[in-house]
């Protein structure tokens, strides 16, 4: 009896790794792999881990369940949501825009290069308004998926309008260009809030002026 129980404990996660139970339980194997994964390795098509986890779409529902399982960490839910969105072009039907926005706000709050960063950098959010004159949208893939959530995403971003931590850009010239902008988390949050609300966004070089604009935005949002 004891032996059977132990085997069950060991086998259940393995059995669930490629299927969803009829009760719609979370795929714990998937969640566990996402928990320690790097954003780009876990999410972007063509990456070995990302392709293996997505398994040609056979785990689509598993990803959807992880996205909506509030027992999972926000890091895991964010990575599952991004994988789902990148592959399908939309969020799971069971997930509201506001709930999805919470995952993106988590990602932005963890973009500074600190120990709990899941592999994100400023590059993932784009150069914001810096290249507006070139016709660039300012938002990379990650940011464009946040914008697709619409106005319900604003509430999740609002607390980040106070966050002065630096956002670093990786790469070579990308890093040189992005880091010269000296963006803070609140600059990124403000850019996306403004875009979501269809407000005009212009690049302002001086941080003090940007902070003042963000303060004005906060007042308009009713704080």
């Amino acid at each position, binding site marked *: 009896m004891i032996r059977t129980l132990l085997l069950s404990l060991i086998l259940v996660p393995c059995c669930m790794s490629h299927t969803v139970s009829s009760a719609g339980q979370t795929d714990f194997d998937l969640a566990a792999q996402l928990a320690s994964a790097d954003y780009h390795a876990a999410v972007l098509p063509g990456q070995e881990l990302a392709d293996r986890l997505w398994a040609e779409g056979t785990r689509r529902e598993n990803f959807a369940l992880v996205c909506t399982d509030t027992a999972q960490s926000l890091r895991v839910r964010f990575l599952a949501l991004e994988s789902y969105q990148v592959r399908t072009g939309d969020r799971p039907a069971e997930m509201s825009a506001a709930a999805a926005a919470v995952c993106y706000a988590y990602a932005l709050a963890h973009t500074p*290069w600190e120990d709990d960063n899941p592999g994100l950098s400023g590059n993932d959010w784009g150069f914001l308004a810096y290249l507006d004159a070139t016709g660039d949208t300012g938002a990379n893939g990650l940011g464009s998926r946040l914008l697709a959530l619409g106005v319900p995403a604003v509430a999740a971003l609002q607390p980040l309008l106070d966050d002065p931590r630096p956002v670093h850009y990786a*790469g070579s010239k*990308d890093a*040189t*260009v992005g*880091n010269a902008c000296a963006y803070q988390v609140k600059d990124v949050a403000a850019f996306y809030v403004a875009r979501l609300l269809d407000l005009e966004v212009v690049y302002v070089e001086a941080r003090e002026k940007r902070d003042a604009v963000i303060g004005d935005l906060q007042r308009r949002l009713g704080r």
Partner: protein
Amino acid sequence: LPPPDFDLQASHLKGGGGGSGPSTFGGDWEAKNYSLQSSGNSRGANIELHFNPGSGVDATQIGLIQTAKAINNGKVTYIGDPTRETHGIKGADAIELDSTTKETDEGTHIDQLGQFANPLYATGATNPGDTLDTTATNSQWGQHGWRYMGSGGKQEHQEAILKDTPAQANVAKDSSNIFEVAAVALSGTQKGTFYGSVRWGWKTDATGNHTQVPFEVVSQGVPSSSFLKAGEMWNKGKTSAGNNTIDMPLVDVKVANDSFTPFEPADAKVCYAPIVKGTRLQVITPWRIPMQYGTVKIVDGPRTGDLVQVNYTDWNKIVDERA
């Protein structure tokens, strides 16, 4: 681009050699403020790279083009806009750079934002109708140089500069970012001529040591095969908005797969010293029946710029560099 329609020889065009850095065919290089940067698990470097055109240079504009190759925890990676990956050398097209480590040039690409169409590092957004030499530069990223005789016999001279601060996160071990920078004449008499290339960058090893890549010459003239292949990818590529990129000059470089002695013709403006195996060459006049010889130019090494006439019996020793 067709080969330049002038014959420069090494004796006409050498770096002054007076600077603190290395010299190439067309001038002297200097790495100012070359230093490592690290914070937490992020690693990188800073550099302000100067190219000082030598006395034999005759170009009204000289630009710097940089290739980048990034390794993140042992794997090739592309950082920034996804367009970069479309500009990189694919694994199937890569060649081995080091027979010991089996390192290849996969991932090498022109270092420019995906949004920008001009490959010159110091340039920014292009305007409609821009060409390689007309796109505005931004002093935060560098400047173009020049050296030519101006009106009234006044020597006009300016260094070309590249400013870079590469960085990656979560790369405390087994990672690197390595760059090759080439100087090329954009306009003037020597338009299209490469003046040499240098390497720089940073690495972390398996134990976490973070070191600078030695600042050294890659080529005396035409940049490396990896650089040229990345240039080919760039010229075929698009910007992130789907617009055509502006073509950079390329040279179809061949290599001598065995040593040979040049043909000695009656006229004497060419070099007769033996060509050693591995010499990089550009075909100027291909050999064809019933000609006695074809003409090539040495594009790397101490004899960069020398013209050589190759006997038809040796023409099969000139092969593609990436073959």
